[in-house]
């Protein structure tokens, strides 16, 4: 069985499938995600794929400061991604609220909504950074370091 489990964890590193949630972003991050899968950056060479359904995804990419309207959506989508899963907060907005901090209609921090495994700084981060983050998250999935895996492990 251990051969299989090792194969499975190795495969986790090799095939991160990404689901994108725009939680009130200004589009800046989102138009930098799309080029990640275009010829110059080509995320497919690390096995990454954009998925349309959260049920197929391993990694949740959250961009934007999480507006009140999208808060429940983000929570719901996090639930719909089967474990093990990693969450990447993309850009400054889900980390701190960025320029929108102090707005009454945003939550401001992704941490308050879902457990975040990785933060990618930048407004917006460059495609290289995003790809690196995806790869790092995949490695975390391999080693079992994401919140979802730790939770399952400890209780």
């Amino acid at each position, binding site marked *: 069985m251990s051969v299989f489990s090792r194969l499975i964890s190795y495969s986790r590193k090799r095939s991160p499938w990404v689901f994108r949630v725009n939680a009130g972003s200004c589009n800046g991050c989102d138009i930098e995600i799309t080029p990640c899968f275009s010829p110059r950056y080509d995320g497919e060479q690390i096995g990454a794929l954009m998925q349309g*359904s*959260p*049920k197929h995804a391993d990694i949740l990419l959250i961009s934007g400061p999480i507006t009140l309207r*999208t808060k429940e*959506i983000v929570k*719901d*989508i996090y*639930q*719909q991604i*089967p*474990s093990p899963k990693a969450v990447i907060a993309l850009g400054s907005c889900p980390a701190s609220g960025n320029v929108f901090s102090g707005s009454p209609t945003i939550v401001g921090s992704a941490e308050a909504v879902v457990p975040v495994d990785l933060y990618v700084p930048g407004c917006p981060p460059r495609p290289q950074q995003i790809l690196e983050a995806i790869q790092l998250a995949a490695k975390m999935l391999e080693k079992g370091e994401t919140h979802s895996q730790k939770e399952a492990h400890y209780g």
Partner: protein
Amino acid sequence: MNTLAGFSLIVLLGGVVIQILFGKILTTRLKGWISFIIGGISFGGILSLAPVIIRGQTIKANLFNWQAETPFSLYFDGLSLLFALMATGIGSAILFYCIDYMQHETNTTYFYTFMLTFIAGLVGLVSAHSLLMSYLCWEIIGLCSYFLVGFWYHETDAVNGARKVLVMTHIPGYAFLIAILLLYKSSGTFLWSDPAISAQFNTGIFILILIAAMAKSVMFPLHTWIPEAMNAPTPVSALLHSACYVKAGIYLVARLYSIVPWHPSWNFILMAIGCVTMIVGALFALIQTDLKRLLAFSTISQLGYIMTAFGIGTPYGALAGAFYVFSHGLYKGTLFLCSGAVQHAAGTRDMRRLGGLSKYLPGTTLVWLVAAAAIIGVPLTNGFVAKWLLYDAALESGAWVVIIVAWLVSTFTAFYILKATVSVFFGEPSSELQIDEINDASPLMQMGMGILSVACLFFGVFPQALVRWIAAPAITAMQFALPEKITFLGLRVDSSGAPITAGALLTISALLVVFFIFALRRPTPKGVSSFTGGDPLPEGGTLNAVDFSEFAEESFSPAFRILNPDPVYLWIWRTVTRIAESVKIGFGFFENNLVAFLIGAILIIAALVFVI
């Protein structure tokens, strides 16, 4: 042994008598039980004949002699066995289902009386030695269907449907009568096994009999009565479609093989009619929104297959036909009983208002899925073997049009059956459905359906049993030699017939068990909804049967106009009534003014006499 031949018939008629005599005393459920037991006994009676017939003998018995030349005698051979087993076997399962289904109905004496007469009629038809008795039984089942379709006589639709059934099958039935009389005139006998009949048989008589058979067996263009018969109680529809009524025409056509060697053009006619019918039935089934109407059109299409199989005219074709006719009885009966359970539970059979019933009717869903798989022709079901035999037979005789048409129509079959399946049992429940009141069919009903669906699977895995014991005697009776390669353990598959199917089934079920144990060991998160884009699903309609097939309907819409003969019949009907009307007016005028006419006539005659 010869006395046993009439046993089933007598038991069934005895059942009728019991129903009539004790109808007032017995409770509804008891009547059902008695009918089922009667049916079971008659099934047993026919089964007991099987060993003799499989050995290749025929059984003859006289019921009573009316006249020396036209004895009411029975002639029981393989073909009779096939149809009689079907009628009593499937009929018993349906009667079993009736016990619960009909328990809240009034007037069940009427119902069970005619149900038993119906079955007895078919048994009589297939075992009749005399053509006259055949015709008698032919009309008895016609009348029974009229009474049964019109069981809910207070509903206009049911009454109109029953009338259409009677008119459209009774009038072509005269063609059969004419054929019998013509044969009698030229040969002087009513017994079909008489060589004199064979000698006098010609294409004209074939056509006459074919017309009667076409109307009974819903061949295009005489098929339009069957959708109207859907207002009957479900067990009646099931019996009508699967075992008794529509199979009568098939029997008649198959029986012609034992009477006379066929002219090649007859085969061609039959194949052409069959192919057209299967296309028409499948196309019209696409656009139905009523579950039972969809099944009705599917019956038309399936009977097209059977007719084609018998039309091929080779031993192999006859075998395919015999196999198909029995298989169709099994799965179509199941499908109808399931639709009855759906109607019972949900209160409607309009597929636009159904959906998501798999959660509330798990048993019915399972049974339906098996039967649906069979009609689509999924391997390991009897439907697959039937189609396989048909294609093989057609290939052997080089009828390539038949293969391609039959095969393409089978993809249409898959389409409309899936349409029914998904829009009734899967998907979102419609908002119009009263979810709280839905209960699965009662255990008795489920058993009735279950027996038939298990038989579908059994004959799919061991088709040899059906081929060897039921189909083979039938084709022997049709004057065909059994195809060489068919042995008990191999269905044209020299060494690997039964093992491969049984082995496949075993492997699949073993793997399924292993997989389920493996899958269920893993905990799964609960309460996660389906993905709808983040927000909850908006209130409002759900996908239904119309949405499933809308585009197909649109694409084939010209076909629906061209292939529907009903307007023509309506036109004929109107013309006839108009002529009758004008004739009536003429006569009416004459009648009202009779005195004046008489006086006038007398005066004219007197004047004429006077002048002359």
